């Protein structure tokens, strides 16, 4: 059976026919997608994946789109990112991620080797995250109407009955913990786009299900969790501050940044707290429980750099909701970004 599948592996550029539902589409499914993601729920390749009854708890559902440019970067690619991003939205909500759908929009003329790599990466991420990809779709748009490959996902998981995390639980006095260095993903993508050689720097992209579970099982009272993707840590903090009506203060002295990330930011005129992380967990927990969370995260792969980076308190008149206490002990507001963070020159 394996021999047969290998013989069907598609080659040549992606053509409009590959999205038309006929023989070429079938070739892609049977020759590439099905073998890569193989699982009992995908195998029938029917119109819908019929799943077993969900485990006890509340279902959690998320969706996401991926259009990252460049499609690959040190430490990952669009395929790996699309699965991790979806899994992580579920994981930070307290859910156990279970099932994924993966829909692709391909540009006519796309090199099949790129598609093969994206698929292989997505499959690898699925295995790492312990999820099954159970439904997918492929469309092909004419050359120039897309940009190589776009992916849209949905993810279904279940929040166990005893878990209740969310911003509604955050209160004044909570501390904020990050699982590792900040901004690695955003920095590496922007650096690649601007032809900056970042040496050892890799995207932090990884599934967070293990880290999230570790935090939840640490004995600490985890109040809320987030993954600081688009807009970075500063944006997540603004969202939490807005929903809770509280003030969040980050301490510049404690923020973990790789030197390459800081260098990229200096060179491009960017602020590292606004750069995306794709494999970092932010946890809000009572100050008394901070050590439990930090230790639990540090014991997990990808969490060795976990530390407390800020605290939550009541709003102060005359101050922004989210602030940075600088090295010189001044207070600097961290507002939401306007427009894209365009590289500055002056």
């Amino acid at each position, binding site marked *: 059976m394996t021999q047969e599948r290998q013989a069907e592996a598609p080659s040549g550029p992606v053509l409009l026919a590959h999205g038309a539902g006929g023989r070429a589409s079938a070739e892609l499914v049977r020759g590439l997608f099905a073998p890569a993601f193989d699982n009992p729920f995908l195998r029938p390749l029917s119109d819908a994946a019929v799943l077993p009854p969900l485990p006890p708890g509340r279902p959690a559902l998320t969706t996401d789109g991926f259009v990252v440019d460049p499609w690959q970067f040190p430490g990952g690619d669009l395929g790996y990112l699309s699965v991790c991003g979806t899994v992580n939205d579920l994981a930070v909500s307290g859910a156990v991620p279970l099932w994924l759908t993966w829909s692709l929009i391909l540009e006519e003329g796309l090199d099949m080797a790129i598609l093969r790599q994206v698929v292989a990466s997505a499959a690898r991420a699925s295995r790492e995250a312990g999820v099954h990809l159970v439904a997918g779709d492929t469309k092909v748009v004419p050359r120039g109407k897309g940009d190589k490959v776009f992916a849209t996902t949905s993810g279904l998981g279940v929040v166990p009955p005893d878990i209740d995390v969310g911003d509604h639980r955050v209160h004044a006095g909570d501390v904020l913990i990050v699982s590792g260095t900040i901004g690695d993903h955003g920095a590496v993508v922007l650096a690649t786009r601007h032809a900056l050689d970042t040496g050892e*720097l890799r995207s932090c992209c990884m599934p967070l299900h293990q880290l999230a579970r570790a935090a939840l099982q640490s004995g600490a009272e985890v109040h809320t969790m987030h993954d600081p993707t688009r807009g970075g840590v500063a944006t997540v903090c603004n969202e939490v501050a807005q929903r809770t009506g509280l003030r969040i203060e980050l301490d510049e002295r404690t923020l973990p940044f790789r030197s390459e990330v800081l*260098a990229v930011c200096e060179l491009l005129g960017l602020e590292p707290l606004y750069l995306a992380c794709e494999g970092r967990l932010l946890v809000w927990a009572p100050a008394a429980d901070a050590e439990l969370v930090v230790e639990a995260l540090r014991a997990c792969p990808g969490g060795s750099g976990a530390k407390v980076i800020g605290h939550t308190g009541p709003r102060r008149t005359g101050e922004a909701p989210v602030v940075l206490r600088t090295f010189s002990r001044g207070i600097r507001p961290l507002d939401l970004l306007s427009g894209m963070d365009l590289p500055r020159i002056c």
Partner: protein
Amino acid sequence: MCLAIPMQLTDRREYDGTATLGGVRRTVSLLLCPDAEVGDHVLVHAGYAIGVVDASEAEATLALFDEGMRREVAAEARLAEGGAS
């Protein structure tokens, strides 16, 4: 009036070189700093080295600020007393 970042020149060719900061390497043009040598710290603006940084001056500047805090204030106090009375 612009963002200029100090980077270290790690190698050079006739018109350009490689500069590094915190593990990030970038090609920079040396057309404006033709005499920059490998090992120098250069200020990089818009992809060009615009000047060589003299790190030893950092100490001197801090000393100047420290001095400004002590000596000149006393001198000003005398002048202020002289003017007020």
